[in-house]
């Protein structure tokens, strides 16, 4: 079989003649490297390189040839190029500017320094984020107050469109998940309480835990994932498209046009969704009680009414608008903080969801402490 590429060495007096031919191209690079290394090892003093037999030459072949020539010259030899096609000669000349041997990798940072840097930056970032979020809350409040004084400025269409998306469209998923949680709680409660013969108290368990905590918390987390993220993504995409800048130059108030309708929508929708979630969870609990414990619906309602007070319901409901405010604020704030390209939108959206769920749970804990002092 004929070789794809070759380099034959012969002697013409004191000069070594390198007869190079075949395809000096990328697919044969491994062979070429071996050929060139062979010539380098032979340590020829002076050489003439004949390229007449070359079928094709690309940058890989030309680079290897160039490297060979340079090495031979560095060893003190003289190298001449004999016969060569014009395009091969041009390509070889292109290699003549030896590339500066700059490093191709990023500067190395020691692990512990990198760790310390990251911890420090995260800490400062956390503090800055908190401060900016409070500033944003202030800005939103001022805008809200201004709009309240002139109610004509409320963007009604936008508000209702967001209400539909945040509230109405979330009904199926919120309802289904709450129902299932009701079923699970009821069953687990009954299972544990059976040991004491107190299965009937699983109704109390479901009632209190759903109305006080789980209904509102579950809904808030769902809305944060569903709508908080959508706020960030929508506003962030507008930021990337320079739509926000366009609005400013057209004299539109971004807070009024984009932030307020979303914030109001989520603050109206979340309490309503919470109420719906409470109902769905109680329904789930009631069905499970009927199926597993044989507690009939009237019995369930009677038990619920005598042990679960109205205050329990309100303790849960009162939290909804606050959670909604957090979700809306964080969603819009992170959206406005998007900078650069589409990758930033994704990053900020993730951040918004994590941050709003975090804040919702922190706020829930704060409410719990507060209510325990107030004696609810």
């Amino acid at each position: 079989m004929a070789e794809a590429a070759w380099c034959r060495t012969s002697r013409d007096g004191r000069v070594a003649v390198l007869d190079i031919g075949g395809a000096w191209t990328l697919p044969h690079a491994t062979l070429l490297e071996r050929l060139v290394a062979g010539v380098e090892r032979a340590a020829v003093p002076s050489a003439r390189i004949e390229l007449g037999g070359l079928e094709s030459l690309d940058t890989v072949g030309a680079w290897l040839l160039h490297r060979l020539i340079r090495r031979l010259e560095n060893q003190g030899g003289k190298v001449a190029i004999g016969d060569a096609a014009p395009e091969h000669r041009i390509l070889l000349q292109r290699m003549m500017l030896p590339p500066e041997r700059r490093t191709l990798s990023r500067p190395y940072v020691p692990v512990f320094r990198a760790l310390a840097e990251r911890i420090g930056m995260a800490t400062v970032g956390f503090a800055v984020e908190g401060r900016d979020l409070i500033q944003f809350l202030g800005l939103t409040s001022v805008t809200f107050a201004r709009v309240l004084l002139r109610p004509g400025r409320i963007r009604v269409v936008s508000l209702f469109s967001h209400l539909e998306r945040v509230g109405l469209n979330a009904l199926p998923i919120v309802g289904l998940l709450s129902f299932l949680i009701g079923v699970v709680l009821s069953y687990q409660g009954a299972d544990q309480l059976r040991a004491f013969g107190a299965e009937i108290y699983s109704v109390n368990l479901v009632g209190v835990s759903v109305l006080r905590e789980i209904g509102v918390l579950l809904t808030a987390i769902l809305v944060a994932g569903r709508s908080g993220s959508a706020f960030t993504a929508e506003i962030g995409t507008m930021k990337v498209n320079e739509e926000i800048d366009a609005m400013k130059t057209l004299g539109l108030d971004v807070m009024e046009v984009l932030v307020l309708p979303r914030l109001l929508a989520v603050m109206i929708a979340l309490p309503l969704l919470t109420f719906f979630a409470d109902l769905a969870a109680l329904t789930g609990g009631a069905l499970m009680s009927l199926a597993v414990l044989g507690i009939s619906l009237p019995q369930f309602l009677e038990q619920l009414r005598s042990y679960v007070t109205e205050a329990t319901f309100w303790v849960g409901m009162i939290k909804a608008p606050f959670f909604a405010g957090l979700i809306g604020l964080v969603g819009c704030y992170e959206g406005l903080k998007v900078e650069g390209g589409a990758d930033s939108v994704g990053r900020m959206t993730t951040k918004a969801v994590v941050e709003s769920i975090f804040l919702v749970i922190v706020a829930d804990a704060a409410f719990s402490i507060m209510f325990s002092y107030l004696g609810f």
Partner: protein
Amino acid sequence: MPPPGDPIIRVRSLVTRFGAQTVHDNLDLDIRRGEILALVGGSGTGKSVLLRTILGLKQPEGGSIEMFGQPMNTLAPREQLHIQRRWGVLFQNGALFSSLTVAQNIRVPFRENTTLSHKLVNDLIRLKIQLVGLPPDAGAKLPSELSGGMKKRAALARALALDPEILFLDEPTAGLDPIAAGDFDNLIRDLQRSLNLTVVMVTHDLDTLAAITDRIAVLLDRRIMVGTMSELMTLPHPWIRQYFHGPRGRAALAAHRGE
């Protein structure tokens, strides 16, 4: 290697549609080895669609595309991959992988397609960086740290990594200032000569057309008209007349003739 002038890409009765809208209807196009061919046309005439169809990123609704004499639509995926290695593409905004440095971007095609030694690949990366006229320290930079012109050069270096025979450019000079655009034109011409490339580019830049293209393909009424700039200028079609005989076209041509 076949002689220059041979068709290297042969498009026959190509039909592409988006829904009810026909973009190309029975379009024929030959691209010859060793030429620089520009695709021009008004907005919405399907320049980029044609490019994407030739690249196999969009399936045509009818017709055939032959590359290097092989029909693309009947080839097995492995063989298609083999052919794809013989071309390089420069996307409009560079499409550099944003999480990788310039050097790592150029390394991607080597790592995926070759078994060269690490040292040789590093040498070749340095060489490509220098070939496209980037400063040597650009290799360690991330795309976000580069200017628009440098990004295009870096993307060109990646497109040239495996020594392609055909180079596809989508609006190579869009978004560059006139000086940078002129430099980029010269770079492409220079590389095309020394690397023996066939270049297919979508462009709106009349200066580019006048300065470096061998032939121009004009997309008109879902078909294509191909010729040199002076041939096209004699055609009576109103769009062509407006395009080449408008003030911008005349200025570009005058500037080129004056050189």
